[in-house]
């Protein structure tokens, strides 16, 4: 079982590389090096802040775009090209296919993030000429970004398991936006009464909450991140991704592929 999942995952990774997904690294490198050189000339005293903020924001946005646009096609493309039938005619369970696809996409994003992280640290060294201990906090921000990717990958797969690529992209991107407003939704629930309170509270817990993952600004100011937050974000991402993947598996298991 593990081998089958690993095979599907590695094929998904290879397919993403063949689709030139990693070309985004070139755009990322240009963006970061351009910013590192230019900002010093057009602004005042924020070179390091810009490199950290821009670098981590770019890592996050590039990854989210990749997660959504690759994730939404993972199942539908296989159905469209009829390659899914070849896969499923072998001793591969439908749930293994979904889980393998998920790990393949998550792996692609981790590799992508790894190279981007090297870029961020290189740009940081270029503007500061040295590293300080607080720069290690950037790794925490990168870790949280990867956790966000894990959630978005699972959501993209969930939507991909029953919807068209276009609708899946709309759903996944909408959830990403809503996820950034999840705390407002919870505050709104606190102010509402009766049925709307229940509804808003339910929605606030159902949509992914991305606000706790966003520590870029505080890390740019060298503010430490609590160990408890790291642990809880890890658990939240794992539980949420498992929930979305389980949904994807349930739908895909019962989907009529004829």
């Amino acid at each position, binding site marked *: 079982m593990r081998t089958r999942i690993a095979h599907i995952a590695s094929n998904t990774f290879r397919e993403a590389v063949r689709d030139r997904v990693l070309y985004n690294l070139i755009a990322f490198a240009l963006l970061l090096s351009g910013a590192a050189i230019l900002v010093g000339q*057009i*602004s005042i*005293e924020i070179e390091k*802040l810009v490199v950290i903020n821009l670098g981590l924001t770019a890592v996050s946005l590039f990854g989210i775009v990749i997660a959504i646009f690759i994730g939404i096609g993972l199942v539908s493309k296989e159905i469209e090209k009829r390659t899914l039938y070849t896969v499923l005619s072998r001793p591969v369970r439908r749930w293994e296919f979904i889980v393998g696809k998920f790990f393949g996409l998550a792996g692609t994003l981790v590799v992508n993030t790894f190279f981007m992280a090297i870029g961020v640290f290189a740009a940081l060294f270029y503007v500061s000429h040295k590293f300080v201990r607080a720069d290690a906090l950037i790794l925490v921000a990168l870790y949280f970004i990867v956790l966000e990717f894990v959630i978005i990958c699972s959501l993209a797969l969930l939507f991909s398991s029953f919807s068209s690529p276009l609708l899946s992209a709309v759903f996944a991107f909408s959830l*990403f936006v809503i996820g950034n407003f999840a705390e407002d939704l919870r505050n709104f629930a606190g102010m509402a009464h009766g049925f709307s309170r229940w509804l808003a509270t339910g929605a606030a817990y159902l949509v992914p909450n991305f606000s706790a993952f966003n520590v*870029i*600004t505080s890390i740019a100011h060298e503010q430490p991140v609590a160990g408890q937050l790291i642990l809880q974000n890890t658990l939240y991402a794992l539980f949420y991704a498992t929930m979305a993947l389980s949904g994807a598996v349930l739908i895909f298991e019962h989907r009529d592929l004829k």
Partner: protein
Amino acid sequence: MKPRQKVTMVAGACLILSLAASAFVLHRTDRLRPQATLDEVLFLSSPTVIKRASLGYDGLLACIYWTRAVQYFGYRHHSFAASYNLLAPLLEITTHLDPHLLVAYEFGTSFLAPQPPHGAGQPERAIELMEYGIQNNPDNWKLYYDLGFVYYMELRDYKKAAETFERGSQVPNAHPFLKVMAAQMAQHAGEYETARMLWSATYQTTQDKQIRDNAVEHLRALRVDEDVQHLQEAVTRFGERTGRLPLSMAELVAAEGLAGTPVDPDGHPYKLTPEGRVELRVPDDFAFATKGLPPGYKPRPKFHSPQ
């Protein structure tokens, strides 16, 4: 030549030519409307809305707005502008997006507070900005120092300045001169002495070359103001004694028993006009001097920062 190569060459030539042509047309269009920039437009003015719309990437957006504020100030300052309508909103958006962006408070205040042509002439907005900064960064003594500086330099409000320096001196690890400044303000000590102390403190507490140069410029201007005031008093005394104005600086020096011909910080002797005014030989070299300037002289705008 193969048909495929022909197409490649023609398409390549078309691409380069049309790119050059479009750039040329755009350049001509820009010359038709040279002021068609986004400088005076703020499509979204609510800091709260912008923070929400940032989807959590508020740090990057704050850097972008800060850069825009710097560019806006620099552009208007360079063109001798009398109004800086967007400066305060841009700084408010910046600091709302990232309340810990200290540079936006420190430099932002020095953009906002001084009177034109050195700044926007909005000390009240500068005070609001700095109070917001202190509210979000209560342990940063430099913010209190900058706020006290605005109260003293721009508003001459000694009481508020003393209170602010006193508040700042309570912050852990605050620089000891805040206590001294609080006392100076409380007793309205000599203007030049206090101003010299503030600019010297600014020089000593920053690593930024631009700010250090600026502090040196202010210290030089202070010396000029003080020299000119003393010489002008000497001219008045001479007039009272003799019933006429001195004919030359040499006569004034001899009458007052001065050690030699008084010179400005660059070594140029001060000028005595037939009307009895003491003036600088090269006023352009002292952008912040307020005395010794020829009548109707307009100083060049120059960056002015307390921090």
